[in-house]
């Protein structure tokens, strides 16, 4: 995989914020992930070259973080908070309802490739527990009955 001139320009702008290129590596990984859904080996190598890192070094960084995917995920990623307040206020019921509706448990991707369900640590939305995010949209005070509307919003 090649980086397009537009990619290189966008990443170059971020690299310019730092005295050393590798500091832009999380942004670069997230950039590739936003474009391709996940960070493939080819994406990883392309970024490593751009940032003067070895692919192994970059992979060590990539695999450390919860929000970087080294394997393909569904078109939409559902992040369901599994931290303490959401647990107290019924996040397990939400997980079960999601399983009823789209047939996936945490860590799984639906067979049609549309959804991946992942647990996530406290989203800082505990006053609206249980909380979840779908891609970058935040939902709070979620009740099982609202899930069909949240997962399949009418366009």
């Amino acid at each position, binding site marked *: 995989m090649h980086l397009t001139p537009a990619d290189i320009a966008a990443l170059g702008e971020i690299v310019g914020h730092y005295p050393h290129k590798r*500091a832009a590596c999380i942004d670069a990984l997230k950039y590739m992930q936003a474009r391709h859904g996940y960070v493939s080996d080819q994406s990883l190598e392309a970024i490593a070259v751009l940032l003067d890192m070895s692919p192994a070094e970059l992979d060590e960084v990539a695999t*450390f*973080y919860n*929000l970087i995917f080294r394997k393909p995920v569904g078109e939409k990623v559902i992040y369901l908070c599994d931290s*303490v307040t959401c*647990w*107290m206020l019924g996040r397990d019921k939400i997980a079960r309802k999601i399983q009823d509706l789209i047939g996936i448990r945490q860590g799984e991707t639906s067979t049609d490739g549309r959804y991946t369900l992942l647990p996530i640590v406290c989203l800082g939305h*505990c006053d609206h527990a249980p909380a979840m995010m779908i891609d970058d949209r935040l939902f709070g005070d979620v009740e099982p009955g609202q899930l069909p509307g949240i997962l399949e919003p009418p366009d």
Partner: protein
Amino acid sequence: MMTLERPLTKNIKPNTPPMGLHAYQAAGGYEAVRQTLGRVAPADLVEMVIQSGLGGRGGGGFSAGRKWQLMPDPKADPGPRYLVINADEMEPGTFKDRLLLEGDPHQMIEGIILSAYAIQADISYIFVRGEYGTAITRLESAIGAARDAGLLGRNILGSSYDLEIHVHGGAGRYICGEETALLNSLEGRRAVPRAKPPFPQISGLWGRPTVVNNVETICNIPHIVLRGVDWYKSLGLDGESGTKIYGVSGRVKSPGTFELPMGTTLNDLIEHAGGMREGYQLRAVLPGGASTAFLLDDQLDIPLSFAGVAKAGSRLGTGTAIILDDRTCPVGMLHNLQHFFAQESCGWCAPCRDGLPWVERILAKIESGQGEMSDLALLDDIAGTLGPGRTFCALAPGAMASLVSGLTYFRAEFEQHIHTKSCGWT
């Protein structure tokens, strides 16, 4: 009764976009910057912040001004200097910095300009957890507006002081909130803590002098500068200064954030949150996030100041209280907390890397009715090996705070799980 002053949240209205540059300035914003840059000596500003008694709001309460004072003199050590804002906020049960970042990004920027000027930093990075997309967008747009107005960049307001601010989005790992792991993460390295000393002020980002401060800490600075030390001190109770953004989550009627005098009692805070929901009783409280020890329902009259909570055997931490009610299984809650810490251990030192998952497995076993009495003694033992000073950073001791207090306070529930071989809670 006195009307409460809410300097940190006065511009914030629920479900409303934050003030833009003009509205912020019309409300007195950036006045502190105008009065300070090029007019007040940086060392005098540091002294003012020391005198104000402002303690770090990231959880430790260490004097912000004294932390700044440890920066070397730029003449003795010329070269880049950094101010890093810790906006990682991943402590379970904590949602106060989100409010400040999303609700009033210009206040954050104004605080950064003043603080960076005080320590004579030329670049500031705001390390924001990746999930806070709205905060990142709002900060970036506010930074753009401030730069266009000459409040950032070269020769700010003709003062010959230069400052750039960059937003650095994280990628999700609790350990990045630990200030030296944060520096490694920012540099693009594996986010494990660094040995201290040297402290970041001496050797921080890329080996250069660096101060790391919490979002809320820095948001206090413009108000201290504008209204003065005496006013700031008078805001607090129980001998501590300023206001605090407290929070309450759990089964209270109105969970949320509340800016109140530092040192407000736990009782008052819970009253602000509307008290318990119908049908639920308060059982215990984690006063400041998942890394603090439980307080019981007979300790609600304690002041939520750093010293007050410490005296009661816990820590103020982030000041966002998590309420355990009488219909939630305390063993289940502890299992949930330890699952978090086991997952988020960075793996750098063996006691934490191996000990936390072990604790989690034992709690899972007890919760599911497979536990034995000897497991309780084992948990006590492991907790001893993960206490303060036994591990490389404070993550593991933080994890043990709720466990150790919970093993004492909820002994009956632990034994009940073991004797009845089940969890009686639904």
